[in-house]
């Protein structure tokens, strides 16, 4: 999708995406000429459709994880379905986790926890972040489109 600033006759540029809650996906676009910003707000059904297609509004900067959609969306998966569920931290192994971040990670279902941990660790590694905190996790969720993770 693209947005046009009709007053300036300029294409508005994607600025950021957020997950403000209640299933809403928000994407902000700004006119490069007049600076006016608009927000695209999808309802939970539209957000779900985007997630179902396995695409990310605003694009993505990391490689897809194996069975990313399956692991992120299934609610009746076995806790021990994946061997890496308790260990592999991905390329970001060595990145520290704050106590609060570890606590939050522990609340993620086992079925998807290994993948989520790897995504956050890779995100931190790519950006030179030495410690993962809840704030870093929030940023990663919004930037990477990790709805519900």
């Amino acid at each position: 999708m693209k947005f046009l600033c009709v007053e300036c006759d300029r294409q508005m540029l994607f600025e950021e995406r957020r997950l403000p809650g209640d299933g809403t996906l928000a994407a902000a676009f700004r006119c490069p000429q007049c600076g006016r910003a608009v927000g695209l707000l999808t309802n939970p059904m539209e957000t779900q459709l985007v997630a179902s297609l396995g695409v990310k509004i605003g694009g993505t900067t990391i490689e897809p994880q194996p069975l990313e959609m399956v692991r992120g969306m299934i609610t009746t998966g076995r806790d021990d379905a994946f061997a890496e569920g308790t260990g592999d931290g991905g390329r970001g192994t060595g990145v520290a986790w704050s106590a609060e971040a570890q606590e939050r990670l522990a609340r993620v279902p086992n079925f998807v926890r290994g993948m989520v941990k790897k995504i956050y660790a890779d995100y931190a590694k790519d950006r030179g972040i030495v410690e993962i905190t809840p704030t870093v996790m929030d940023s990663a969720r919004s930037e990477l489109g990790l709805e519900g993770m």
Partner: protein
Amino acid sequence: MQRGVLASYDAFFGVALNIRTYHDLTEPDRSGLPGQIAAQRRRVAARLAGVGRVVAVMSGKGGVGKSFATAGLGRALARAGRTAGVLDADFNGPTIPALLHIPVARCALRNDAIEPAVSSDGVRCFSMALLLQDGRPLGFRGPEAESHVWRETLEAATLREFLADVAWGTLDRLLVDLPPGIQRFQELVDLLPAPPAVLTVTIPTAESRDAVRRAMQFAQERGAQLLGVVENMVDGPFAGDAGEALAREFATPLVARVPFNPDLRVWDGLAQRMMRSS
């Protein structure tokens, strides 16, 4: 410049909105959704590059023994020294691991893919049965209201990930065990670089014949090669000649007639015919 309905609004409000088409706007679309979809397709094609042939096992009818035939064929291919894989595309009623005698165990992650489970015969397999809690239906996170709108899309995406994210490796044949109906077959056609070959399964009855005919017609209209018809449960209570009738109607061979308790020769014969078909 695009005009039309908006032009009447322009006239009403006395303004001239300079509305243009999507393709008139040439700044990069950072979301790049078409590009993301294309990348998904490339990932499927790359993963299946080592697969000699994808064969969809389908039927328009439930309960005719598609999964039974798929597993029997897969094991026979392995006995014949061929490399075979089975993708269980029946996400809501997965049975392939049980039919291949594969115990449920943790799925191993290797590099960028999930390792398939492997039967004692050497048949590689991936199935929703390996992922779900015992006795629980497949559940997806999402708004409960109007879930039919997005659930089929999620199942199509699941099929895509099973194709693209499982380390199938080099295979002579990848058998895709489809659920009853035609929807999953259409999704498979959409995802693969070329339509899969199709092996259809029926039981002898006229009712089955009529349902399977629709599925075969559907597959043919989408460019799939029909490899043949398997007639299952031929020595039981089901009367009819659906296998022969469908084979004749679609000019495709009746490749196996499978009794209720088939011996290995039935499957071995089917495997030989499947390997001969190019």
